[in-house]
């Protein structure tokens, strides 16, 4: 993807992985979460995030917002001659929304350059995917709209990258939207402070041990080692660099001040 390609992040995580994947410094994300004026939205939102230089024009807390917003990004991409594409991410829960169908329809009708990416972690808060979606693959929704629909192993970083590359190339070539479903897992609860349940049963420590065996980061590290792309030492250095970056982001967030109330008027209407 290019810097100016549009991304709508999946809501859970508030876009952090999507921002990082496009090279955005996470310190603005963290400062926003802490409500500081140095945050990406000036600290007024605490969970919306924006970085227009990198194709992020915002996030929202009402599930399913991303579908129609992405259609709009797609229209801009198609009209402005910049060859941009849109990657629009959502969870299995959000796939329930009617806005998905309306947006899939418009994007397919108008051959908009959109890659729809479903991050299916198989749990919608406490509801397992089998109880909220009637067939095995959410990707099958693509076929009704004449789009390619592909299921990939979401724990396999390379498989995901390959599938997205193919769909991005297709979108950029003007051939229209695609849907990719990444089958993944939820390693933590829906929201910190809430129980981690599937229907009525709490997940156990053993469940997590089992899930963690297929942690995509660990699997990718093993692959890189095995194929000789990186050595153990190089990987440790990367871990250290990450730790330094996280410390710096925390320091940046701590150092910021809460916004001045006068910004309320500045932010409400454009001059």
């Amino acid at each position, binding site marked *: 993807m290019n810097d100016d390609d549009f991304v709508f992040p999946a809501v859970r995580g508030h876009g952090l992985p999507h921002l990082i994947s496009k090279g955005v410094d996470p310190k603005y994300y963290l400062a926003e979460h*802490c*409500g500081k004026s140095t945050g990406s939205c000036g*600290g*007024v*939102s*605490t*969970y*919306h995030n924006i970085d227009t230089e990198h194709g992020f024009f915002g996030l*929202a*807390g*009402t*599930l*399913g917002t991303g579908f129609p917003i992405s259609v709009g990004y797609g229209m801009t991409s198609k009209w402005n001659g910049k060859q941009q594409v849109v990657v629009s991410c959502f969870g299995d*829960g*959000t796939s*329930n*929304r*009617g806005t998905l169908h309306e947006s899939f329809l418009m994007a397919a009708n108008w051959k908009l350059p959109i890659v729809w990416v479903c991050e299916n972690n198989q749990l*919608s*808060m*406490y*509801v397992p995917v089998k*109880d*909220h*979606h009637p067939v095995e693959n959410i990707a099958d929704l693509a076929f009704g709209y004449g789009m390619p629909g592909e299921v990939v192993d979401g724990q396999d970083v390379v498989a995901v990258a390959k599938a997205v590359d193919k769909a991005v190339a297709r979108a950029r070539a003007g051939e229209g939207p695609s849907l990719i479903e990444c089958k993944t897992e939820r390693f933590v609860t829906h929201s910190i402070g809430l*129980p981690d*349940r*599937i*229907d*009525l049963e709490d997940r156990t420590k053993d469940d997590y041990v089992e899930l963690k065996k297929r942690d995509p980061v660990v699997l990718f590290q093993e692959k890189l080692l095995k194929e000789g792309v990186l050595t153990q030492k190089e990987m440790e250095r990367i871990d250290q660099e990450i730790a330094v970056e996280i410390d710096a982001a925390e320091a940046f967030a701590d150092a910021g001040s*809460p*916004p001045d*109330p006068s*910004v*309320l008027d500045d932010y*409400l209407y454009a001059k």
Partner: protein
Amino acid sequence: MREIQYHKAINEAFIEEMERDETVYLMGESLRGANYPHSEGLAKRFGDQRVLDTPICEAAFCGAAVASAMTGYRPIVDLMFIDFMYTAADEILLKAPQWRFMHGGKVNVPVVFMGAAGGGMKLANEHSQIPSSIILHSPGIKLAVPSTPYDAKGLMKTAIRDNNPVMYFWHKQLMAVTGEVPEEDYTIPFGVADVKREGTDVTVVAYSYMVQLALEVAKKLEGEISVEVVDPRTLEPFDLDAVLKSVEKTNRLVIVDEDTERCSFASELAAQVVDKGFTLLDEPIKRVCAGNYPIPGGYMEQHVLPSVEKIEAAIRSVAV
């Protein structure tokens, strides 16, 4: 009398009404696993035919509830955060309230919509609203806004038994508040205000969590300004007589409404009091509402939402 928490009071109302009437059922997202404690234990007790986890498709399940209600059932639809009602605005604001009227009164729509309302948790615009004015602007749907565990239970039971659509806002800040709730069956009639505290100098009309803030201020001003706190408990139907009766005594009115000020319930009540009780007033009516901004998150929330300081200032400004 025993004391229980606000969420437990709602939970008891569900259990009693579901046991009393087998057409009552609950529908929403992650209710079985209990997204909020008010649905705790219901799935085990009543089974999955009467506690339904829906996909995240508000338009579909709110619309379905309208039809289910007019064909023999009494659905309680839990929208989780009430802000999510916007995703089913057609069903909640145009279909549920208007169906009966537009079909010559030939069918009833006994559905309860409910959701967590209000701010104070720094959750920002899409998880902090108390959109009373939008409901009030849609004739045909009632609006219950309980401020205590007692009211929460009694109003929920009345809402379930009502033959009309009812919107029920429960407030996140009240969830863990405890209060006296009788063990025996009781209901609270809609449109009957409750004077939560008697006073002689200034009338404060407040609803939902704002009642608690108003009471806090009233207590603080004790001995200096005597504040009467009137809680309408339902905003539609609305007990205007109770407000006029109180203003007749105090000649001063402050209205506290957590919803956005412009075109709010507070604005509507101010207009009604001017219309029906102009001569009772010695001072201008003061409104304490959320400012005319989206509700920000984090530190900024306090600058937009009503607070005890803002309520106290408004009371002092009229208590000359």
